[in-house]
């Protein structure tokens, strides 16, 4: 037992505080150490001690000095204030921890129920598994304090039991350690390429005490650097190439012990009496089951990893277990290759281990292989005779370990050893607790067929889940291999079927014809203006696209609708045109600014030629031509324009291909496929205009004053017109160009009254 005086002084405090903390440490005063060990609760307590004594005046950083002293050693540190009243204590715990680490391997406990870790390289599953384990053990705080994800910051949402919690994400190890000074375990899920560097910088953090490295394939020379640093700085490395370890009922590293079901099966949610260490992570999980079957369960289990040079060794952990009072016996699963087992043999011979050790070294099969074999683990290699499983088993047995005759007899040997301890009264039965139920994750419940959940989105045109994406069931590779064009892709994604080549070729011609129509049309104009305002490509493109509607670009859609309606109802061109006129609607697809009856649009002629040559039927187009003949008799400029040609021919494509039902054709025309064609085609031009303006470095566009008619009188004309319409209750006087809707302002009424009186 050790008393530590903690004194807080400073102008921010109402008075200076003095507390004595009793610290129980396995070896209370460590010889030759300049510092002492403090449990983590003291760190957690310091901020609240300070905040509860803060005077009304706001705090400033470095106002308060925290002084810890013990046995003549003294250390002080200003605290950090994050805000007026919130205090975080970034106590340089290396001062305090150094002694703990000094003897960590020898004194025992690495973890406790309050141990918190920093998790490097965000992986959802292992972190969630750690938190589930915490909840199962009844921990109050999650065992993951923070996540380090290089280059990212913020929070990650994870479950702690039924509740969701947000775990802070930091972009650097230093930032994470500063923010979570009580987290002393670093769980490294980096790849083998970067695991060594990140582990080294973690080891160099004063707050980090234990580093677990999961990656397999870390270069030996890098691991050796980590081992050397850890040894001289009294820190512990677990791994590389390991799943980690677990202290039952307290703390678990990453994926150790697998699923929740398995953890419950192995009773890992509460401590037993057995310390276990092995090289293999997979086999450690197997052994947790075995041990749970024949004993009261695991107290702590560590997988040191299968590498040639593990960060900590079998014997390191056995010696540590020997100093943990709750551990009553130890189980070791070694492997051929390496000489680590011999340091355990030495420790046994020297009497450094006074608890029963049941050990087995696997790999007796190596002698079956004639030449040298590299087994699954890097360290598992038939070296010399001394490194063979047989020799190691023999040596362990001679040194006093319980060594079975085969792996199959391992379980019985463990049972026998445990039963003997029970008989001798060295193990008192553990009162079993029932762990809380962990809600199952939706994904795993669905996978196991226990629940079903409705989907939120339905898709019928493409699927990206398989080996390669498919468009309407056609794999991307065959689209390329069969030499499909953009028209075929449109056919698959829009119509969900492979249309004949003449159809897709027609679609492609339409796209080409509609791609652009010069800089003066309103869409292109908007795009140009936006691009010149310094906006990005997408903004410029959409400002042009947003112009597309009933007056700009909408004619194809309308032409198809009206032609279809008229033809299907059997209207003669005369009836059709006149009925439109009566409704005050200009016939879409008819009329051109330049082209005349004797000077036809070349594009229209090409489309018609293509269709007549390739389409099985061109009845809608023929109908459109008849309509044109009639309108030309009224005025020479009322020719079938390119919109009318595309609209009518598209109807022929749909009807003539024989691949669409009547309902499908109605729907295609109804929901605006043709407009889609125009949008797609014109995007090509709009993107071109954007790049053009940017390339030309055109400045901000401003419309010239000279080009604007500034007049109040114009407004009045509209007001009068509007009034006239209202008074007569009739149709607007400029039907094709409806008047803008002015808000009913009181001035409007006054103005109208004024002019009416004139």
């Amino acid at each position: 037992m050790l008393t530590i005086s903690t004194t807080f002084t400073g102008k921010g405090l109402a008075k200076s505080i003095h507390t004595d903390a009793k610290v129980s440490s396995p070896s209370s005063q460590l010889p030759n150490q300049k510092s002492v060990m403090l449990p983590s609760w003291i760190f957690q307590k310091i901020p609240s001690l300070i905040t509860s004594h803060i005077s009304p005046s706001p705090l400033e950083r470095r106002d308060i000095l925290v002084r810890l002293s013990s046995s003549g050693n003294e250390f002080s540190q200003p605290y950090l204030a994050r805000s007026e009243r919130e205090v975080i204590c970034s106590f340089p715990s290396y001062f305090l921890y150094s002694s703990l680490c000094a003897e960590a391997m020898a004194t025992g406990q690495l973890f406790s129920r309050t141990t918190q870790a920093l998790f490097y390289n965000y992986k959802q599953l292992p972190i969630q598994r750690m938190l589930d384990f915490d909840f199962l053990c009844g921990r109050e705080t999650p065992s993951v304090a923070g996540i380090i994800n290089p280059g990212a910051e913020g929070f990650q949402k994870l479950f702690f039991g039924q509740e969701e919690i947000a775990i802070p994400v930091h972009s650097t190890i230093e930032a994470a350690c500063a923010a979570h000074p009580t987290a002393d375990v670093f769980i490294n899920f980096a790849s083998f390429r970067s695991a060594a560097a990140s582990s080294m910088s973690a080891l160099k953090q004063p707050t980090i005490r234990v580093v677990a490295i999961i990656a397999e394939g870390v270069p030996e020379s890098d691991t050796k650097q980590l081992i050397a640093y850890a040894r001289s700085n009294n820190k512990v490395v677990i791994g590389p190439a390991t799943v980690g370890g677990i202290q039952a009922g307290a703390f678990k590293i990453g994926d150790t012990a697998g699923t929740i079901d398995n953890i419950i099966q192995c009773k890992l949610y509460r401590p037993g009496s057995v310390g276990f260490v092995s090289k293999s992570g997979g086999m450690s999980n197997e052994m947790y089951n075995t041990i749970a079957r024949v004993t009261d369960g695991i107290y702590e289990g560590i997988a040191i990893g299968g590498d040639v040079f593990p960060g900590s060794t079998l014997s390191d952990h056995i010696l540590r277990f020997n100093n943990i009072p709750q551990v009553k016996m130890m189980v070791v699963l070694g492997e051929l290759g390496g000489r680590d087992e011999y340091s355990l043999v030495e420790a046994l011979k020297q009497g450094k281990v006074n608890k029963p050790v049941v050990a087995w070294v696997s790999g007796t099969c190596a002698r079956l292989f004639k030449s040298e074999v590299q087994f699954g683990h890097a360290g598992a290699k038939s070296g010399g005779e001394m490194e063979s499983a047989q020799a190691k088993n023999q040596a362990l047995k001679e040194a006093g370990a319980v060594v079975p005759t085969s792996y199959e007899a391992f379980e019985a040997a463990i049972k026998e050893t445990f039963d003997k301890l029970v008989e001798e009264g060295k193990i008192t039965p553990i009162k079993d607790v029932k762990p809380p139920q962990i809600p199952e994750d939706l994904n795993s419940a669905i996978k196991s067929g226990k629940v079903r959940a409705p989907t939120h989105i339905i898709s019928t045109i493409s699927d990206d889940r398989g080996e390669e994406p498919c468009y309407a069931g056609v794999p991307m590779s065959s689209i390329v291999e069969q030499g499909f064009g953009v028209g075929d892709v449109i056919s698959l994604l829009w119509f969900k079927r492979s249309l004949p080549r003449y159809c897709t070729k027609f679609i492609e011609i339409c796209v080409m014809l509609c791609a652009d129509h010069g800089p003066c049309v309103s869409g292109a104009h908007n795009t140009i203006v936006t691009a010149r305002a310094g906006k990005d490509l997408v903004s410029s493109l959409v400002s042009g696209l947003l112009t597309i509607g009933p007056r700009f670009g909408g004619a194809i859609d309308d032409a198809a609708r009206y032609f279809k309606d008229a033809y299907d109802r059997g209207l003669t061109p005369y009836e059709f045109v006149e009925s439109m006129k009566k409704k005050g609607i200009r016939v879409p697809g008819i009329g051109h600014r330049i082209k005349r009856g004797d000077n036809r649009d070349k594009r229209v002629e090409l489309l018609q030629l293509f269709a007549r040559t390739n389409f099985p039927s061109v009845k809608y187009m023929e109908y459109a031509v008849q309509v044109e003949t009639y309108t030309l008799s009224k005025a020479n400029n009322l020719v079938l324009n390119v919109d009318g040609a595309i609209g009518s021919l598209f109807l022929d494509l749909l009807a003539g291909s024989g691949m669409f039902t009547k309902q499908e054709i109605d729907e295609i025309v109804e929901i605006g496929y043709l407009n889609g064609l125009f949008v797609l085609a014109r995007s090509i031009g709009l993107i071109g205009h954007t790049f053009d303006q940017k390339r030309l470095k055109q400045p901000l566009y401003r419309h010239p004053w000279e080009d604007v008619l500034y007049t109040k009188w114009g407004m009045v004309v509209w007001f009068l017109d509007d009034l006239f319409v209202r008074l007569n209750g009739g149709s607007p006087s400029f039907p094709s160009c409806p008047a803008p809707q002015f808000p009913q302002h009181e001035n409007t009424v006054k103005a109208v009254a004024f002019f009416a009186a004139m």
Partner: protein
Amino acid sequence: MARKKIREYDSKRLLKEHLKRLVHIDLPICSAQVTESTDFTELLEKESWLSQRRLVVKPDMLFGKRGKSGLVALNLDFAGAVEFIKKRLGQEIEIEGCKGPITTFIIEPFIPHKEEYYLAISSERLGFNISFSECGGIEIEENWDKVNSIFLPTKSPLTDEAIAPLIADLPSEIGKKIGNFMKGVFAVFQDLDFSFIEMNPFTLVDGEAYPLDMRGELDENAAFKNEDKWGNLEFPLPFGRVLSPEESFILDLNDKTSASLKFTLLNPKGRIWNMIAGGGASLIYTDTVGDLGCATELGNYTEYGGPSEEEMLKLARVILDCATANPDGRKRSILIGGNIANLTDVGATFDGIIRALKEKKSELKEANIHIYVRRGGPNYLTGLAKMQAVGEELGIPVEVYGPEAVMTGICNRAIEGM
């Protein structure tokens, strides 16, 4: 991935190149490699010293004691060397119980010498073992008591003081030369991620160190850091290990993936075949079959970890092909085993195996295959149910066990009635 031995030719190539780069020592060594595909005329054009000097020829096949085995030819001219090689190329020899053909030779200048020094550096967990002896050569094992060793902790530099105990008995001038050479070799060792270097012997030519024979071992895990430094490097198989087409196929597959896939054919006529997940468990299953007295019936050693369904399918196909290749009416067993997985989705792994089983339906029946499955871990119930179902579908006896059963219990089941 682990420690891999490299050929003497490559050891010397790396040493020469990087001694020069790191410590500016220019080793006057020359070596040429000869294999079946070597064109001697071309070789002579490239390495003109071959026709100008007397030569030494020896196999470069990762085995030692070549001198004692009469496989080293000294003091030949080029024609003599070619004749020596042609006589032995492809010839099968036996070294310490391992049989295999000689496929690779190294030719070097013949260096008459008196002194034979021994130098070895090996990487240990906490540092490096450096050994030196004035009595190197083929009698080194008889003179092992004359070898001095020092242990250099990981972060310590190799200083003159550290080396002093090794070369204390040498005349100071020679000691200084050899000490410098050691420092250079150690620098190369560290810089190139060697895990072992041995020169037995090296000598002095014109007062400068000159390695005559050399062995090297690299840490393959460090390959990603050393791509440029190692250059075009081959990791040959241990001598006597000739890969079957199936083994090369899996080795190739293993090299292309982050998953671990290992397959060693032990006995093509064996009647117990393994398909075991995990480095630790695969070893124990193999042990257990041996413990049960059936070592001679063991067809293969296999270990897999983290394969995709496609990779698992390919591995399973190979094992099933081998297991069904020699039907004789007697019972054959396939062990689909593993420990209780920490994170592997057992159901998904089994999908690949099941696809392979379905492909080989008739072969499995003809070979009287019995399948024994034992696995636990994420989604294991689904996996076991699928296995059971495929057995019924194909009409092949399949027994499945979960985590409640002893891991190696299926080994007993497999040998029953064999």
